[in-house]
């Protein structure tokens, strides 16, 4: 018992503990009430089933959450990711079929399985557009010294307008098959999008854990002024995280537009900024900045989508699902509040009050 308690405590204080508990709770709920949830079959040489759906659907959110984690770790927030997703999706659709919008064209040109721009260029331009948006946010925050919430609010409001401007206000349907690969393709039975997430995650992880950049980001979040005085360019750190967040959102836009086969300035990535912030908060990163965990944010994104797909399997209409999501947020809030933690610690330790846990 004596050896056991510290271990329990260590597990409990690990930042991955609470997100994993939440995920496990949802999965246990599924196991009891919807046993079919875990069924995985093989169709056309790839896996399918609810779990695969969760992975494929949550991929864009995971990407955005990775970028958002770094931004929030510096004490900022990026509200524009949803708009950046729309811009990136619009860019892709326009490059595939630039004729649309300007001229009256016949239906068979419109629905042709062809592209006017090579695929590699489309991907490159998509990513460049998103990165540029991120750079703009970063410049406003780091050089313009505007509060992050306002600075990114500008692009959030204007960005969807820009996306509509690009597609000339139309919802563009994409008929070019190779483009669908990002959102609907499979490698070794698993969705392509998951591999993309893995690559980006690995890149970000190596960047923040194997180089000193991660430490710099945390120190900017804890105290930007002190960071500046200790000789670290807090401006460039901020510039970097916002740019990276824009880059992640651009990839998410690519995957999303490829998944739904269309680009719609109003609805691509709708509410993604809110979901991404939610994922990061579920992952235990504080909105005030400082310590962060990329993996916990990815788990957070998984929790959101596992919950969503679970609700779908119960036949809850997509719109009413919002109320369910509110309950999810409430549970997270309660679980993370100091009161709840102290209470739980006291139950488990029986002597918790003198420990004075701080998290």
């Amino acid at each position, binding site marked *: 018992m004596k050896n056991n308690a510290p271990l329990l405590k260590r597990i409990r204080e690990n930042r991955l503990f609470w997100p994993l508990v939440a995920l496990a709770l949802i999965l246990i709920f599924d196991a009891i009430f919807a046993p079919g949830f875990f069924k995985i079959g093989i169709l056309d040489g790839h896996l399918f089933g609810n779990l695969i759906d969760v992975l494929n659907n949550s991929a864009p959110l995971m990407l955005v959450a990775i970028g958002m984690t770094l931004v929030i770790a510096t004490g900022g927030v990026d509200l524009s990711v949803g708009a950046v997703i729309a811009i990136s999706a619009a860019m892709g659709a326009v490059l595939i079929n630039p004729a649309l919008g300007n001229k009256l064209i016949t239906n068979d040109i419109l629905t042709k399985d062809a592209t006017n721009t090579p695929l590699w260029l489309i991907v490159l331009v998509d990513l460049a557009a998103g990165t540029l948006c991120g750079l703009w946010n970063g410049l406003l925050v780091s050089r313009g010294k505007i509060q992050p*919430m306002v600075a990114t*609010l500008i692009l959030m409001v204007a960005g969807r*307008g820009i996306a509509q401007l690009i597609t000339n206000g139309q919802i563009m349907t994409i008929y070019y098959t190779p483009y669908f690969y990002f959102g609907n393709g499979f490698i070794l039975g698993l969705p392509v999008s998951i591999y993309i997430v893995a690559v980006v995650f690995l890149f970000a992880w190596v960047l923040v854990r194997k180089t000193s950049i991660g430490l710099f980001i945390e120190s900017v979040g804890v105290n930007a002024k002190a960071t500046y005085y200790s000789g670290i360019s807090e401006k460039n750190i901020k510039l970097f995280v916002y740019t990276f967040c824009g880059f992640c959102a651009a990839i998410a836009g690519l995957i999303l537009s490829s998944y739904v086969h269309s680009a719609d300035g109003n609805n691509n990535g709708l509410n993604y900024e809110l979901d991404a912030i939610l994922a990061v908060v579920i992952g235990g990163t504080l909105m005030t900045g400082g310590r962060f965990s990329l993996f916990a944010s990815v788990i957070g994104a998984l929790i959101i989508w596992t919950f969503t797909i679970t609700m779908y399997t119960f036949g809850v209409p997509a719109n009413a699902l919002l109320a369910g999501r509110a309950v999810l947020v409430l549970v997270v809030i309660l679980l993370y509040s100091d009161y709840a933690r102290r209470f739980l610690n006291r139950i488990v330790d029986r002597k918790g009050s003198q420990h004075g846990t701080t998290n």
Partner: protein
Amino acid sequence: MAQRIKLFLLNNGPLLTTITIFILVYFVGGRLYPAMQKPQVFFNLFINTASLLIVSIGMTFVIITKGIDLSVAGMIALTSAASAALLANGASPAMVIPLMLLMGVVFGFTLGCIIHFLKVEPFIVTLMGLFFARGMAYIITLEALPIQDLTYRFLALTKIPIPFFAKAYVYIPSLIGPLLLLVVIYLSFFTRFGRTVYAIGNNEQSARLMGLAVGRTKIIVYTFSGFCSALAGIVWSISLLSGYGGYAPGMELDAIASVVIGGTLLTGGVGNVVGTLFGVLINGTIVSILQFNGTLSSWWTRIGVGLLTLIFIGIQSLFYMRKKHS
């Protein structure tokens, strides 16, 4: 004297800038489209932005305390859907309207309590409120419900002539915003509550050490915002005569943008509810210029509001830098 003028300009700079920008935007619109010079077009601004004005007034207080309220648009949708459903089932408006206001108050109070007692970011809590309100509205009705109630129709269609302007009129609901504004001006500048709100925004720690009722004031502010959004929801359902969960998409952003354009800082402690009025009017003016043009598409509104926010923030930061130096 010169010193005094300078001080006055520095203190009220953001507000004066907002008013100047509004006059400038309106003037440009008038020059481009002579039809915009009609007085009715000006009063149309109040008709079109009735809900936005009410919501933004509530939001101003919240933002001055360094908080944010994302739930307002959801609350508008929920109020409209709930009142449409109640009226369709034969409830009388005399009961529905107080009930909706009570719902808004309870909703805001709950959010305020969670924010204060559980110490969670307002952003997250009100985000939950947004999800909850919209979801509930969709649970009530999945499609738009018409309102056939006679009282609502009467309120929606009665024109109030404006004195001194021939043929100019507003509707009854568009008067609620300006009236509320007067109340809020009194509250924010002439009461203890108003001063406490500013003190909290400037430095919550100091406000608490000074013995001000920080917790109570914060909860009241969110309750008031909930009340305002329910009121805006009633105005919305009166002017559209229907209720639906998808109404007012993204209006929380319009409200925040209007408040910011009105000179209130999102960092809290600085702001003026009069500026919010002009922020909302600027928003309305841009929309009507686009309508008068006719060929410009709706997305230019978003781009325009975004650009204006940017310009205004630039001017604002200039003012505060000056103020710090002087």
